[in-house]
């Protein structure tokens, strides 16, 4: 029922500017994830949408209302905090019903909404406990329950899973995704974990130093990173980057080794241009242990320095032009350090960035 629009939103703390004119349109029912390294302004942006932080410039629209100066209670949003922020002096039931009580709903309405939320999040057994007597995962669910009882226009999540252990985190991730399908609401979700971002998001917003670097679906940002920052931030292991210079349709890497300019970039480069060649581990594979490659490829002979078996595949560390790169081996066999292998680089899946601007040449 509500889209969210940020128009040139700016945040300053005194002379320090931490959010630099963010423009973002979030559709109704869309799950948008803000992701970026620590201190890049994700929380600040989220808190400005919530109304917990005043904006220093620009405009925030929720639904069809400009909410710039509205206090949080008039924005019809709910928020899940990183540390949950449950009310310690109230039982789970009271925590869940608090917002409805403030809104002066009748006891019957409150009970019904609370029971429904408790049902969805399987909290029914803990209703009379205080938050202090709950485990981390249970507290997390209460925090989510408190957010959903009100049927807000927009849900805001600030790193809600970062205090949980790895297993619980994956489990809750799935629950959040299911929840989104069930309650049908716009969600803005902040995390610094790119896996969380990839798995949850309809669209990912990658931020750095208070700027948006790229907005797109998880596949878009993975397949077509707009610049080297996004390329290394999204995807695990991070994309391999090698500096080089264009010379006669070939890219000459630092130690003289060269590979052809991938066909899709041939008319986007010029002679002598400083570029950065990017490719993922999945696109550098030992001959005979690779996916069948459709188009052009380059063959490189290299020694493996380290191998990390992951079961269905093995991650190989090797080096090209003096720089460590990671490759992948499918249907793996044991590889000893120092062993020389012939690798195949899938040129059709390579990326090329301008060395100066760091932007993709695509």
């Amino acid at each position: 029922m509500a889209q969210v629009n940020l128009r040139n939103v700016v945040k300053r703390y005194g002379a320090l500017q931490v959010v630099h004119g963010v423009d973002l349109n979030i559709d109704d029912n869309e799950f948008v994830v803000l992701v970026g390294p620590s201190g890049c302004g994700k929380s600040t942006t989220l808190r400005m949408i919530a109304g917990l932080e005043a904006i220093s410039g620009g405009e925030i629209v929720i639904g069809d209302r400009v909410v710039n100066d509205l206090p949080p209670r008039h924005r019809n949003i709910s928020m899940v905090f990183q540390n949950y922020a449950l009310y310690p002096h109230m039982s789970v039931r009271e925590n869940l019903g608090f917002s409805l009580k403030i809104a002066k709903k009748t006891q019957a309405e409150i009970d019904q909404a609370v029971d429904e939320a408790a049902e969805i999040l399987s909290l029914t057994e803990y209703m009379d406990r205080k938050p202090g007597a709950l485990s981390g995962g249970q507290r997390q669910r209460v925090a989510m329950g408190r957010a959903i009882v009100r049927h807000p226009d927009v849900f805001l999540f600030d790193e809600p899973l970062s205090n949980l252990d790895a297993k619980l985190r994956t489990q809750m991730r799935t629950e959040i995704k299911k929840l989104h399908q069930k309650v049908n609401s716009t969600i803005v979700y902040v995390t610094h974990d790119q896996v969380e971002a990839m798995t949850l998001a309809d669209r990912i917003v990658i931020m750095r130093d208070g700027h948006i670097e790229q907005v797109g679906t998880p596949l878009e940002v993975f397949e077509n990173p707009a610049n080297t920052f996004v390329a290394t931030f999204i995807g695990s292991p991070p994309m391999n980057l090698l500096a080089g210079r264009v010379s006669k349709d070939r890219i000459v890497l630092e130690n003289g080794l060269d590979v052809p300019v991938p066909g899709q970039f041939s008319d986007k480069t010029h002679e002598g241009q400083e570029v950065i060649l990017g490719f993922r581990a999945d696109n550098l594979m030992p001959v005979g242990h690779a996916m069948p490659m459709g188009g052009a490829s380059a063959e490189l002979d290299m020694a493996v320095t380290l191998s990390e078996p992951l079961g269905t595949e093995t991650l190989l560390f090797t080096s090209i032009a003096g720089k460590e790169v990671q490759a992948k081996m499918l249907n793996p066999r044991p590889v000893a350090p120092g062993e020389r292998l012939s690798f195949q680089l899938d040129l059709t899946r390579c990326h090329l960035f301008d060395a100066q601007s760091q932007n993709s040449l695509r």
Partner: protein
Amino acid sequence: MDENRHHRLRARTLKGLQLFALFIAMCFICIPGLWVVLNSFRPTVEIMAKPPVWIPQDLNLDHYRAMFGGVGEGGVPVLRYFTNSLIISVTSTVIAILVGMAGGYAFARYQFKGKAAIFIGLMLTRAVPGVALSLPLFIVMARTGLIDTHIGLILVYVSLNVPFTIWLIDGFFRQVPVELAEAAEIDGCTRWQAFWKVEFPVARAGVASAGIFAFLTSWNEYALASQLTRSTFSKTMPVGLRDFTSEFTINWGGMCALAVLMIIPALILTFLVQKHLIAGLTFGGVKG
């Protein structure tokens, strides 16, 4: 085997020594108080006896009877003093707590110019011994006509207690995560509701302990009260103790009886609030 026995013996000896040290310390703390209680039930002769009579021979309520009796028979206006003490202590505590909450909350939550300086300034006022202020206070009160009034003493006690209540309450509000109030605001509260419905209940243990301290300070204060009160109209119980001294004698028994009456409310209050303190100290709304 031998080694184990050695260590067990050692542990027991240490435990014994510990208990003994504790006993000595408790003696120092408790005996004067118990002596006061005991003396309030003993005839003057026995109180004054030399060498002291340790085991009481004759316990009775004579001092209490006399205290409540007519003026001629050593009576003092106990009820009057009690009401004065109560009015002054309760009022000054309530005010000190309200001011302390406003101030403590501001220090805990907001950034403002000169915050550190103001805070240190407040703490420094605690470094001035109260008695040193008695003469200036006396002059001010005399000029403003507040000598021998409840309001005069209430003002003094409020200013005495406010720095301390601010400091204590500030500490407690600091422990309440900011996100609680933010969550409440998102749940539909105004800033004011968020304070009263969430932050205050969570920090109420701290407010209660600040209240006890403020109350006990006012309830027990003697030096300033003795300067600023004159008549039964405003004398508090500690000042009332002086009624038992006359030119040549001191009525120790009567004094002890009044002292016991003074201790009882303080004791009851402390017990009541102490329970509440422990119950209130269970945080856990944020990740543990």
